[in-house]
């Protein structure tokens, strides 16, 4: 039995060790390196940054850390604008996703039980098809000589094509469209569990459907609202493809700014500093998400 116990302990270590080592090596360490390079000096070299530690003569170690990458970010209007514009665009898109997604989730949750599966499948299906190609389809709809303008001109609503592509409006449409399924799924998960008896009780006590919604359904679906909003908001802040394809020259978002700084300017330390700033902005929402995950896990353990 002793041997068996030892084997189990050893097996346990292997099972735990493999994914743990992978996550540390290919997720945690890379993030720490971003932190390190964000305080390194830029250099005309390959790779384009100075080492943080220099081994001077006599075994002395000289630390060459600098915070200029960060101060430059806050002095440059471009990045300050990008910062606030990212948060605004992500925030407003999240609200729109909630406004469109909530009634959808509620309608699916209240559909006949055998219809819920197919209806939900229809929400998930677009998520499985190429994100890039779905965003691209909007280019054909929104451009000046695109389908929407053609339709509106034909109907006589407008006389001149509207400029929608390459504006913030197109970015909003793209983000709401792409992230809508992420809002509907967690909302549906909480609304589906809602006990219909609660609503019946409210109705018996004389509450009109709207009143019952405000005082029963909505408060009980808060966990779904929080989860859905985070799943939309956090990735939307760092979105790069949508502003690049649908946005215009004055649409500045952090994800795109980071890529431009990295690829066009080859300024890796500043790109790393921008990543650190972005993480700082998202730390609270990400922590909230983690807390929600843990809660979910506890709920699962109790089942």
């Amino acid at each position: 039995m002793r041997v068996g116990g030892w084997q189990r302990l050893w097996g346990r270590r292997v099972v735990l060790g493999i994914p743990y080592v992978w996550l540390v090596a290919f997720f945690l360490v890379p993030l720490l390196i971003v932190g390190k390079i964000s305080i390194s000096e830029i250099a005309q070299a390959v790779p384009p940054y100075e080492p943080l530690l220099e081994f001077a003569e006599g075994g002395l170690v000289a630390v060459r850390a600098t915070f200029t990458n960060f101060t430059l970010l806050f002095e440059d209007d471009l990045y300050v604008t990008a910062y606030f514009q990212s948060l605004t665009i992500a925030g407003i898109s999240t609200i729109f996703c909630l406004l469109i997604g909530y009634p959808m989730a509620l309608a699916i949750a209240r559909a006949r039980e055998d219809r819920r599966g197919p209806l939900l499948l229809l929400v998930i299906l677009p998520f499985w098809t190429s994100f890039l190609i779905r965003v691209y389809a909007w280019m054909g709809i929104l451009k000046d000589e695109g389908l929407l303008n053609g339709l509106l001109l034909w109907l006589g609503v407008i006389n001149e094509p509207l400029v929608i592509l390459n504006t913030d409006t197109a970015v909003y449409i793209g983000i709401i469209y792409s992230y809508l399924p992420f809002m509907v799924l967690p909302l549906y998960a909480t609304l589906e569990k809602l006990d219909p008896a609660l609503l019946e009780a409210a109705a018996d006590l004389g509450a009109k459907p709207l009143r019952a919604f405000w005082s029963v359904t909505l408060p009980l679906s808060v966990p779904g609202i929080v989860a859905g909003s985070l799943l939309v908001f956090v990735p939307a802040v760092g979105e790069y493809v949508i502003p690049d394809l649908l946005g215009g020259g004055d649409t500045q978002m952090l994800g795109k700014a980071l890529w431009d700084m990295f690829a066009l300017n080859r300024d890796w330390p500043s790109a790393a500093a921008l990543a650190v700033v972005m993480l700082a902005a998202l730390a609270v929402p990400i922590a909230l998400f983690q807390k929600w995950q843990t809660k979910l896990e506890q709920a699962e353990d109790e089942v």
Partner: protein
Amino acid sequence: MRRSVFLLSALGFGYAFLYLPIALLIAWSFNGARLVNVWGGFSTKWYVELARNDAFLDAAFLSLKVAATSATAALALGTLAAVVLVRFGRFRGRMLFNGLIAAPLVMPEVILGLALLLMFVALEQVIGWPDGRGFSTIVIAHTTIGMAYATVVVRSRLAQMDESLEEAAMDLGAKPMKVFFVITIPVIAPSLAAAWLLAFTLSLDDVVVAQFVSGPGATTLPIEVFSSVRLGVSPQVNALGTIIVVVVACIIFTAWRLMSVKKT
């Protein structure tokens, strides 16, 4: 319960919003004219052009290879992580492990891409590997992302599973490893298939992280599509998009039918 007209119309609007662009894309792919507003008659010429486009074909082949490799690795790692989280109870470092597993789900892709690239560059400086970036670096990056999703899928199934089956096998003297392969794996098999498929799709669809960690000569399909789409609407991409939509719809529909047949 009374059917609410408002809810039903909201649902209809939502589906129209989700599917209209996809329907248009399919229509455009058969449009003989290059323009989106002119119908030039039914034509399959964009599909013929696509089939002759070597850049797209090479990229598609590389993407499928990357997706299959990384999804398999992600499934293996994600299943181990799920076993740890569901069956191991408390251990030192659980908080960190839990955090590391869930963080890639919400981490903006640009940060993940930059972080991995910077690590690969630093690693190359120190140990000389990876020598340049390409297939292996993209696979590593996609494995990390896919693993997080695979863990979520496998974990929820594993948590629902009746543990007494495993306990019975162990009482009869089976070693944990044997119990896992003979009892656990068959029981959670549908979730393993779903997890693999999810990791595969995510890899096949990723453009941001791949753009950071790929090198010259390793262009995945999304990178190729992205660079051609930036120049404007291209009928070949419409055709490619249609193929992807049809293939995905078939796979998902079959998977869904199989699952619902099993339940009844």
